[in-house]
């Protein structure tokens, strides 16, 4: 795991740590989107490259 300081370089954004956002950690804010993602991943499956590597 990288430190936050290391993340604030190059293409990586500068991130200010705000512990108050931890209140969202165990809460799904976009439930409908996650349900749709689950449906799509179930019906469409994985990319072929991944299917091969998992076979």
């Amino acid at each position, binding site marked *: 795991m990288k430190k936050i300081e290391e993340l604030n370089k190059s293409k990586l*954004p*500068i991130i200010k740590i705000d512990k108050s956002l*931890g209140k969202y950690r165990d809460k799904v*804010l976009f439930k409908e*989107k*996650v349900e749709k*993602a689950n449906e799509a*991943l179930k019906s*469409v499956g994985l990319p072929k490259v991944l299917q091969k590597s998992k076979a």
Partner: protein
Amino acid sequence: MLLPRYELKSDESLTVFEFVSVGRKGEIPKIVQYSETNLKDFYNLGFGDKDLQTGEVDDTVISDNGDGQKVLATVAATVYAFTDKYLEAWIYATGGTKSRTRLYRIGLTNNLDEIIEDFELYGQREGEWQEFVRGVEYEAFLVRRRS
């Protein structure tokens, strides 16, 4: 070339990000959340406006704040941050509506050369995942950091 983007806040898990869009409609707080799906290492990218009074988020509202490119660049920056911590993560993203998905596709297309340096990128089309190419419409996108 790095596009202008907003300053990001996150908690230590780097799964929830917050930033403030500043434009013609004023200041609009935005939330980006990476949520686990039923598949291991597959996450959904959720993104929407935060209502400061209720704390609720809305991913259907059209902000029309005149800073769409900067907002998308900021969301893209969270993908870098998230996948830098969760190296094996696949990220699923869709706009929810055709027009919003199209906006995402345009954003990906405009920055495709830079994106594919760092990410594998697929589009969902005709019931399968296809390698993303310019000029093709997709229903959703799947991205993973190159190892």
